[in-house]
């Protein structure tokens, strides 16, 4: 599955991000390939969210380069990144819980007559597209006018993913999509991710603290610790113990057990 020979969809070289004197990222190199689920793992504060925020244009890197399909690129805003095909599903999903599924699906990109903010929205067409797109990755909604607030966490996640894909995401970034969900809904989301992968050439960057989830669906792993890459490899390369240790930033779980005893 790994197309190591081809040009990566996204390639970062020596990304550095400083918040004042604090170095959140210290020279990160990353390659994301089409059709792959790439797990980005690491302890709290390792810099995962910082890395994807740079990739999705929320803030610029202090230094370093980002290439998309071999071309260096600079994002001035989240809009630039999404135009370049990077669709980000944030931890808070960027949904307005008070309005309907359709209104959220098209938020910021509504289909209107005359292409003007004051043109009427083509509600029926938008309803249809929203339902179809969500059905494609596994959720049927009966009522596109349902308020998002009344949907389950898994459904919301699907909505946010479907939205990103529909609006041309070549790279889908998912920041801890399963962290707030119950067992069944976690599985729904993993299935959704699998279905997205099957759609074709979309690359997925998955941030998670759940080793089992990573192992279940990821094709490639990158481990971050204290702002640096401490390990990477394909699913086949990595043995069971390695992942847990690397996820903890190199600390042995065995050490942790000893530490706990001293408390």
């Amino acid at each position, binding site marked *: 599955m790994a197309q190591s020979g081809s040009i990566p969809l996204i390639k970062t070289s020596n990304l550095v991000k400083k918040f004042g004197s604090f170095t959140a990222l210290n020279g990160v190199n990353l390659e994301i390939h089409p059709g792959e689920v790439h797990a980005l793992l690491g302890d709290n504060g390792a810099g995962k969210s910082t890395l994807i925020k740079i990739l999705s244009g929320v803030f610029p890197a202090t230094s370093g380069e980002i290439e998309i399909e071999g071309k260096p690129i600079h994002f001035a805003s989240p809009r630039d990144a999404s135009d370049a095909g990077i669709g980000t599903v944030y931890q*808070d999903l960027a949904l307005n819980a008070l309005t309907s599924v359709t209104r959220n699906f098209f938020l*910021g990109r509504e289909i209107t007559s005359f292409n003007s903010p*004051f043109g009427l929205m083509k509600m029926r067409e938008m309803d249809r597209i929203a339902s179809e797109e969500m059905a494609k990755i596994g959720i049927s909604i*009966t009522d596109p006018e349902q308020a998002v607030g009344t949907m389950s966490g898994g459904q919301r996640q699907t909505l946010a993913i479907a939205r990103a894909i529909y609006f041309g995401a070549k790279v889908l970034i998912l920041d801890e999509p399963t962290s707030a969900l119950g067992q069944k809904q976690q599985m729904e989301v993993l299935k959704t991710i699998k279905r997205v992968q099957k759609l074709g050439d979309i690359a997925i960057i998955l941030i998670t603290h759940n080793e089992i989830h990573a192992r279940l669906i990821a094709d490639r792993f990158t481990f971050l610790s204290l702002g640096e890459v401490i390990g990477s490899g394909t699913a086949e390369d990595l043995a069971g113990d390695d992942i847990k240790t690397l996820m903890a930033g190199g600390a042995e779980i065995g050490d942790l057990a000893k530490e706990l005893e001293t408390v």
Partner: protein
Amino acid sequence: MTSSTELRQEADRHAPKKQFWAMFVRPEIGPIGVMILLFGMLGYFSIPAAESTWNPFAGEGFNALGIRNNLRVISQLGIIALGAGLLIIAGEFDLSIGSMIGFAGACMAMILRWGFAVLIPYISFDGGVHVEYFTIFSVDHVTPVWAIFITMCFTLTFGWIQGFIVVRSGLPSFIVTLGGLFFLRGLTEVSLRAFNHRPDQSAGSTTVTEIPDLKNIIDLQGHGELSRLDAKSLPEADLVNLTQSLSTDMVATLTERLAYTYNRVAEAKTAIMETKGVKPLEKALENAVQSGNDYMVNTIQDKIANFSVDPVVPKTVSDVDVARAYIDTIPTVNQVANFFGGNILEGLFDWLYYPIDWNTNNFGNQFAPGLYSCVMIWLILSIFCYIVLSRTQAGNWIYSTGGNLSAAQANGVPTNKVKISLFVFSAFCATIFAACQVFEVNTSDAAKGNLKELEAIAAAVIGGLVMTGGFGTVLGIIVGAFIFGLAREAFFYIPGIDGSFYRVFLGLVIIASALLNENIRKRIMGNI
């Protein structure tokens, strides 16, 4: 293992929508109920105690004049409630609306009264240090359109500045517009005093009066432009000439109408005289019944039954009358002034008088000439706001800006533009309100619009909006304005209670609405 749960889908968990019941979970349903209650109260309590009827239009509340006056209060409040409401949906406040009304009204009135000039002050040293002005341009007579336009330039800019400060500084709009509230009210008073010089007005006054009644200026053949009042008091010979210059059709229609009016007036006079004559007899009858004098009772009853006064003879229609009636039908030359300060539906209200005979007062004259045109302006603005908020991309942006600011930003919604535009729109609504007042009464006062911002916000809350934003509809805002505007009138007519209870009532309604709205919002957010 097979189990039935495997076949179930998430979608199956939603019961199919029941259209009828769905109506009752709409956020507007509570306010609509209160509104209907108030309509009923106003209708029935305003019916005089002596009459017993189930027709709510029988009382003062909903006779022609009652409708005219109530709708005026409601629609004026409704106009600013739209501006305040959309802003609240986007998550911000505007406390400067009331002062903005005062400022805009004063600005418009001063321009209409004294003209407009752009001056540059500089310090002159000739003959002692003092300030001189260099006039870039000045006009003495400004048309209503330009007066409104110039005022808009000031008010919309001020709205823009408030919005800009809010989005740039991240300060709560409460504070920023609170500043605006004091700033504008002060500025209005200061400039009114500065411009009020003798001999025009007494110095130091904070009112502007003697603005010509622009909406009633007509172009009369052979006399040029003059006000209707002046036209009607032209020499009688001129008026007779005018009548003779009219087409026979026109004269016939006008004569017929005037004859109708004179007949109705005569009838009303007769009726009044009859009741006046009968009253003492009825009093006597009462006494007779009490004293038990059957003979007296019978004679007085006879007298009452046969009582009649000579019917009053209607006036005859003269040429001068026709001319004056004709003057009332000539369209104004200041359509803009009339648009804001004039009447609408005059044809309908004429018809309700002649021939329907409902729009008739106790003296037989036509009761209300029409509705105030601010009702139409409110309607236009409401439709516009409804379409924008519910049907357009801009509306979705407004909801998301208030509902979840960071989500809106992450999806590329220009939330700052949305907010600033709505601050500007709020200023726009306040200016429209001021224009309606100025062109209607032809005066302005620095105190105009006092506390209106709170009324507008209250109307919006009653109509189902939530202070944190993202929630509410234009229909709700409209209903809120109705409730707020009707409450005072409705309580005024309740027998035996103090009229000020309407405030107590509104206070309770505001709190109840806020609780209800918050509950509905939480329900939608999935927190309940």
